[in-house]
Protein backbone atom coordinates (compact mmCIF):
# COMPACT_ATOMS: atom_id res chain seq x y z
CA UNK A 1 0.00 0.00 0.00
CA UNK A 2 1.15 3.55 -0.65
CA UNK A 3 2.54 5.81 2.04
CA UNK A 4 0.72 8.82 3.40
CA UNK A 5 3.09 11.74 3.81
CA UNK A 6 1.90 15.18 4.89
CA UNK A 7 4.35 18.00 5.38
CA UNK A 8 4.42 20.02 8.58
CA UNK A 9 2.78 23.43 8.59
CA UNK A 10 2.42 26.21 11.11
CA UNK A 11 -0.85 24.77 12.42
CA UNK A 12 -0.75 21.14 11.29
CA UNK A 13 1.65 18.29 12.05
CA UNK A 14 3.91 16.26 9.79
CA UNK A 15 2.35 12.86 9.19
CA UNK A 16 4.43 10.00 7.91
CA UNK A 17 2.65 6.67 7.53
CA UNK A 18 4.67 4.23 5.49
CA UNK A 19 4.10 0.48 5.90
CA UNK A 20 6.98 -0.53 3.60
CA UNK A 21 9.45 1.55 5.61
CA UNK A 22 7.83 0.58 8.91
CA UNK A 23 7.50 4.23 9.85
CA UNK A 24 4.37 5.58 11.50
CA UNK A 25 4.87 9.06 12.87
CA UNK A 26 3.07 12.25 13.83
CA UNK A 27 5.14 15.29 14.76
CA UNK A 28 4.76 19.01 15.35
CA UNK A 29 1.76 21.16 16.19
CA UNK A 30 -1.88 20.43 15.62
CA UNK A 31 -4.48 23.16 15.64
CA UNK A 32 -6.13 22.90 12.25
CA UNK A 33 -9.18 24.91 11.38
CA UNK A 34 -11.15 21.73 10.72
CA UNK A 35 -9.69 18.71 12.48
CA UNK A 36 -12.03 16.21 10.86
CA UNK A 37 -11.11 17.09 7.29
CA UNK A 38 -7.41 17.39 8.09
CA UNK A 39 -7.24 13.92 9.65
CA UNK A 40 -9.64 12.22 7.22
CA UNK A 41 -6.80 10.84 5.08
CA UNK A 42 -5.06 9.51 8.22
CA UNK A 43 -8.14 7.53 9.24
CA UNK A 44 -8.52 6.23 5.70
CA UNK A 45 -4.91 5.10 5.68
CA UNK A 46 -5.12 3.40 9.08
CA UNK A 47 -8.29 1.59 8.05
CA UNK A 48 -6.54 0.13 5.00
CA UNK A 49 -3.42 -0.65 6.98
CA UNK A 50 -5.37 -2.45 9.71
CA UNK A 51 -6.63 -4.93 7.14
CA UNK A 52 -3.09 -6.17 6.44
CA UNK A 53 -0.61 -4.69 8.91
CA UNK A 54 3.11 -5.38 9.37
CA UNK A 55 4.00 -8.04 11.99
CA UNK A 56 4.93 -5.17 14.31
CA UNK A 57 3.82 -1.53 14.23
CA UNK A 58 5.16 1.22 16.47
CA UNK A 59 3.22 4.46 16.14
CA UNK A 60 5.38 7.41 17.13
CA UNK A 61 3.95 10.66 18.45
CA UNK A 62 6.39 13.59 18.66
CA UNK A 63 3.89 16.37 19.17
CA UNK A 64 4.92 19.73 20.58
CA UNK A 65 1.41 21.12 20.86
CA UNK A 66 -2.17 20.14 20.10
CA UNK A 67 -5.42 21.93 20.77
CA UNK A 68 -8.38 20.29 22.49
CA UNK A 69 -10.11 19.47 19.19
CA UNK A 70 -6.98 17.63 18.08
CA UNK A 71 -6.70 15.87 21.43
CA UNK A 72 -9.93 14.06 20.67
CA UNK A 73 -8.75 13.12 17.19
CA UNK A 74 -5.54 11.70 18.65
CA UNK A 75 -7.59 9.62 21.07
CA UNK A 76 -9.64 8.47 18.10
CA UNK A 77 -6.46 7.37 16.29
CA UNK A 78 -5.30 5.55 19.42
CA UNK A 79 -8.65 3.81 19.64
CA UNK A 80 -8.17 2.50 16.10
CA UNK A 81 -4.80 1.14 17.21
CA UNK A 82 -6.51 -0.47 20.18
CA UNK A 83 -8.91 -2.20 17.81
CA UNK A 84 -5.94 -3.60 15.89
CA UNK A 85 -4.45 -4.76 19.16
CA UNK A 86 -7.71 -6.46 20.09
CA UNK A 87 -7.59 -8.29 16.77
CA UNK A 88 -4.30 -9.79 17.90
CA UNK A 89 -1.91 -7.46 16.08
CA UNK A 90 1.38 -6.30 17.60
CA UNK A 91 0.77 -2.56 17.91
CA UNK A 92 2.35 -0.10 20.31
CA UNK A 93 2.85 3.62 20.83
CA UNK A 94 5.99 5.64 21.42
CA UNK A 95 5.11 8.93 23.04
CA UNK A 96 7.86 11.55 22.82
CA UNK A 97 7.93 14.71 24.92
CA UNK A 98 10.39 17.55 25.41
CA UNK A 99 12.63 17.65 28.44
CA UNK A 100 10.57 20.24 30.28
CA UNK A 101 7.23 19.51 28.73
CA UNK A 102 5.18 18.20 31.64
CA UNK A 103 1.95 18.86 29.78
CA UNK A 104 2.89 16.67 26.83
CA UNK A 105 4.11 13.94 29.14
CA UNK A 106 0.91 14.03 31.12
CA UNK A 107 -1.21 14.03 27.97
CA UNK A 108 0.50 10.82 26.91
CA UNK A 109 0.02 9.26 30.33
CA UNK A 110 -3.63 10.12 30.18
CA UNK A 111 -4.02 8.46 26.80
CA UNK A 112 -2.20 5.37 28.03
CA UNK A 113 -4.75 5.12 30.84
CA UNK A 114 -7.65 5.29 28.41
CA UNK A 115 -6.60 2.90 25.65
CA UNK A 116 -5.33 -0.66 25.98
CA UNK A 117 -2.22 -0.23 23.87
CA UNK A 118 1.35 -0.49 25.21
CA UNK A 119 2.97 2.94 25.60
CA UNK A 120 6.64 3.69 25.72
CA UNK A 121 7.59 7.17 26.91
CA UNK A 122 10.61 8.87 25.42
CA UNK A 123 12.00 12.15 26.72
CA UNK A 124 14.08 14.18 24.30
Amino acid at each position, binding site marked *: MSALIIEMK*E*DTPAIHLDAAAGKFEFSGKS*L*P*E*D*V*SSFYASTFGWIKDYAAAPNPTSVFVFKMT*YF*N*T*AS*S*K*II*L*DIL*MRLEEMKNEGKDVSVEWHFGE*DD*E*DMKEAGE*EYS*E*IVEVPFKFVEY
Partner: protein
Amino acid sequence: MQEIANQGLNGKSEYMQFVVQFHHMMLSKKITLAYEGEVTQEITKAFTAMTEKNLDKIEEDGKIKKKVYHVMVECLQNIAKHADDDSSGSSDKLEDGLSKTGIFVIGSDDKEYFITSGNGILNENIPALKAMLDSINALDQDALKELHKTKMRETAISSKGGAGLGFIDMVRKTGNPLEYHFEPIDGKSSFFLLKSRISKANSEK
Protein backbone atom coordinates in the same frame (compact mmCIF):
# COMPACT_ATOMS: atom_id res chain seq x y z
CA MET B 1 -1.53 76.04 21.53
CA GLN B 2 -4.81 74.17 21.87
CA GLU B 3 -6.38 76.16 19.05
CA ILE B 4 -3.50 75.55 16.69
CA ALA B 5 -3.56 71.89 17.48
CA ASN B 6 -7.26 71.68 16.73
CA GLN B 7 -6.88 73.51 13.44
CA GLY B 8 -4.13 71.20 12.41
CA LEU B 9 -6.40 68.27 13.01
CA ASN B 10 -8.99 69.45 10.46
CA GLY B 11 -11.88 69.18 12.84
CA LYS B 12 -11.00 65.65 13.80
CA SER B 13 -9.81 66.66 17.22
CA GLU B 14 -12.52 64.73 18.99
CA TYR B 15 -11.55 61.54 17.25
CA MET B 16 -7.85 62.19 17.74
CA GLN B 17 -8.59 62.89 21.38
CA PHE B 18 -10.33 59.53 21.58
CA VAL B 19 -7.32 57.78 20.08
CA VAL B 20 -5.05 59.46 22.60
CA GLN B 21 -7.32 58.31 25.44
CA PHE B 22 -7.55 54.85 23.93
CA HIS B 23 -3.78 54.70 23.82
CA HIS B 24 -3.54 55.75 27.46
CA MET B 25 -6.12 53.15 28.43
CA MET B 26 -4.20 50.46 26.63
CA LEU B 27 -0.97 51.48 28.31
CA SER B 28 -2.51 51.65 31.76
CA LYS B 29 -3.92 48.11 31.44
CA LYS B 30 -0.79 46.88 29.68
CA ILE B 31 -2.81 45.77 26.67
CA THR B 32 -0.48 44.16 24.17
CA LEU B 33 -3.20 43.00 21.82
CA ALA B 34 -6.76 44.17 21.26
CA TYR B 35 -8.94 43.08 18.38
CA GLU B 36 -12.55 43.42 17.39
CA GLY B 37 -13.91 41.63 14.35
CA GLU B 38 -14.16 38.29 12.67
CA VAL B 39 -11.94 35.59 14.13
CA THR B 40 -10.52 33.21 11.53
CA GLN B 41 -7.80 30.59 11.48
CA GLU B 42 -5.47 33.15 9.86
CA ILE B 43 -6.13 35.56 12.72
CA THR B 44 -5.47 32.78 15.24
CA LYS B 45 -2.14 31.94 13.62
CA ALA B 46 -1.09 35.56 13.34
CA PHE B 47 -2.02 36.49 16.92
CA THR B 48 -0.36 33.47 18.49
CA ALA B 49 2.81 33.99 16.45
CA MET B 50 2.89 37.67 17.34
CA THR B 51 2.33 37.03 21.04
CA GLU B 52 5.00 34.31 21.13
CA LYS B 53 7.42 36.77 19.59
CA ASN B 54 6.50 39.47 22.10
CA LEU B 55 6.97 37.05 25.00
CA ASP B 56 10.31 35.94 23.57
CA LYS B 57 11.39 39.54 23.40
CA ILE B 58 10.81 40.04 27.12
CA GLU B 59 12.36 36.62 27.77
CA GLU B 60 9.26 35.25 29.41
CA ASP B 61 9.53 31.79 30.97
CA GLY B 62 8.86 28.93 28.55
CA LYS B 63 6.13 27.35 30.65
CA ILE B 64 4.26 30.61 31.00
CA LYS B 65 4.58 31.20 27.27
CA LYS B 66 3.06 27.81 26.64
CA LYS B 67 0.13 28.54 28.91
CA VAL B 68 -0.54 31.82 27.15
CA TYR B 69 -0.38 30.00 23.81
CA HIS B 70 -2.76 27.26 24.97
CA VAL B 71 -5.34 29.68 26.28
CA MET B 72 -5.11 31.95 23.22
CA VAL B 73 -5.72 29.10 20.80
CA GLU B 74 -8.70 27.75 22.73
CA CYS B 75 -10.23 31.22 23.13
CA LEU B 76 -9.78 32.23 19.50
CA GLN B 77 -10.92 28.90 18.10
CA ASN B 78 -13.92 28.94 20.40
CA ILE B 79 -15.01 32.12 18.66
CA ALA B 80 -13.97 31.05 15.17
CA LYS B 81 -15.30 27.54 15.21
CA HIS B 82 -18.74 27.75 16.63
CA ALA B 83 -19.73 30.44 14.24
CA ASP B 84 -20.87 28.80 11.06
CA ASP B 85 -22.12 25.93 13.13
CA ASP B 86 -25.81 26.07 12.32
CA SER B 87 -26.15 22.33 12.12
CA SER B 88 -27.75 21.39 15.39
CA GLY B 89 -27.20 17.68 14.80
CA SER B 90 -23.83 16.56 16.00
CA SER B 91 -22.69 19.78 17.60
CA ASP B 92 -22.75 20.68 21.22
CA LYS B 93 -26.00 22.54 21.91
CA LEU B 94 -24.14 25.31 23.65
CA GLU B 95 -22.34 26.34 20.53
CA ASP B 96 -25.46 27.20 18.61
CA GLY B 97 -25.93 30.91 18.42
CA LEU B 98 -22.43 31.90 19.37
CA SER B 99 -21.25 34.42 16.83
CA LYS B 100 -17.89 34.27 15.11
CA THR B 101 -17.10 37.92 15.47
CA GLY B 102 -15.98 39.16 18.80
CA ILE B 103 -13.28 40.85 20.79
CA PHE B 104 -10.00 39.46 21.93
CA VAL B 105 -7.75 41.23 24.42
CA ILE B 106 -4.46 40.38 26.09
CA GLY B 107 -3.48 42.50 29.06
CA SER B 108 -1.39 42.10 32.16
CA ASP B 109 -0.35 43.50 35.50
CA ASP B 110 2.75 42.78 37.55
CA LYS B 111 1.49 39.37 38.59
CA GLU B 112 -0.61 37.96 35.80
CA TYR B 113 -1.52 37.88 32.14
CA PHE B 114 -5.19 38.30 31.34
CA ILE B 115 -6.64 36.78 28.21
CA THR B 116 -10.18 37.89 27.54
CA SER B 117 -12.50 37.04 24.71
CA GLY B 118 -16.04 38.18 24.05
CA ASN B 119 -18.68 37.15 21.57
CA GLY B 120 -22.42 37.00 21.13
CA ILE B 121 -24.57 34.23 22.53
CA LEU B 122 -28.29 33.50 22.45
CA ASN B 123 -29.85 34.09 25.85
CA GLU B 124 -31.48 30.67 25.85
CA ASN B 125 -28.01 29.10 25.87
CA ILE B 126 -26.73 31.10 28.82
CA PRO B 127 -27.98 28.90 31.68
CA ALA B 128 -26.31 25.77 30.31
CA LEU B 129 -23.05 27.59 29.56
CA LYS B 130 -23.06 29.20 33.00
CA ALA B 131 -23.72 25.84 34.65
CA MET B 132 -20.86 24.29 32.71
CA LEU B 133 -18.41 27.03 33.65
CA ASP B 134 -19.44 26.96 37.30
CA SER B 135 -19.07 23.19 37.50
CA ILE B 136 -15.62 23.29 35.90
CA ASN B 137 -14.51 26.13 38.15
CA ALA B 138 -15.53 24.16 41.22
CA LEU B 139 -13.22 21.22 40.47
CA ASP B 140 -9.71 20.61 41.75
CA GLN B 141 -6.90 19.44 39.45
CA ASP B 142 -7.54 15.73 39.99
CA ALA B 143 -11.24 16.04 39.30
CA LEU B 144 -10.49 18.15 36.22
CA LYS B 145 -8.20 15.44 34.94
CA GLU B 146 -10.93 12.81 35.36
CA LEU B 147 -13.53 15.02 33.71
CA HIS B 148 -11.13 15.71 30.84
CA LYS B 149 -10.65 12.00 30.27
CA THR B 150 -14.36 11.31 30.40
CA LYS B 151 -15.24 14.16 28.04
CA MET B 152 -12.55 13.20 25.58
CA ARG B 153 -13.71 9.59 25.48
CA GLU B 154 -17.37 10.57 25.12
CA THR B 155 -16.80 12.93 22.24
CA ALA B 156 -13.79 11.41 20.49
CA ILE B 157 -15.62 10.06 17.49
CA SER B 158 -18.15 12.64 16.43
CA SER B 159 -18.19 16.36 17.01
CA LYS B 160 -15.72 18.99 16.02
CA GLY B 161 -14.75 20.26 19.40
CA GLY B 162 -17.17 20.87 22.23
CA ALA B 163 -16.62 24.03 24.21
CA GLY B 164 -16.46 22.03 27.41
CA LEU B 165 -13.12 20.43 26.67
CA GLY B 166 -11.58 23.79 25.86
CA PHE B 167 -12.78 25.29 29.15
CA ILE B 168 -11.51 22.31 31.14
CA ASP B 169 -8.15 22.60 29.41
CA MET B 170 -7.90 26.32 30.14
CA VAL B 171 -8.57 25.82 33.86
CA ARG B 172 -6.18 22.86 34.05
CA LYS B 173 -3.37 24.63 32.25
CA THR B 174 -3.64 27.94 34.11
CA GLY B 175 -4.60 26.58 37.52
CA ASN B 176 -7.09 29.45 37.76
CA PRO B 177 -10.87 29.50 37.45
CA LEU B 178 -12.46 31.17 34.43
CA GLU B 179 -14.14 34.50 35.06
CA TYR B 180 -17.16 35.25 32.96
CA HIS B 181 -19.85 37.84 32.39
CA PHE B 182 -22.96 38.03 30.23
CA GLU B 183 -23.74 41.58 29.11
CA PRO B 184 -27.28 41.82 27.73
CA ILE B 185 -27.46 43.09 24.12
CA ASP B 186 -31.20 42.80 23.53
CA GLY B 187 -34.05 40.48 24.45
CA LYS B 188 -32.59 37.65 22.42
CA SER B 189 -28.86 37.73 22.88
CA SER B 190 -26.01 38.74 25.14
CA PHE B 191 -22.30 39.38 24.94
CA PHE B 192 -20.36 36.56 26.58
CA LEU B 193 -17.07 37.65 28.13
CA LEU B 194 -14.55 35.08 29.28
CA LYS B 195 -11.36 35.90 31.15
CA SER B 196 -8.48 33.57 31.89
CA ARG B 197 -5.62 34.46 34.25
CA ILE B 198 -2.07 33.19 33.91
CA SER B 199 0.32 33.74 36.77
CA LYS B 200 3.69 35.26 35.91
CA ALA B 201 5.23 33.44 38.86
CA ASN B 202 6.34 30.06 37.66
CA SER B 203 5.63 28.11 40.80
CA GLU B 204 2.80 25.76 39.99
CA LYS B 205 2.81 23.47 36.99
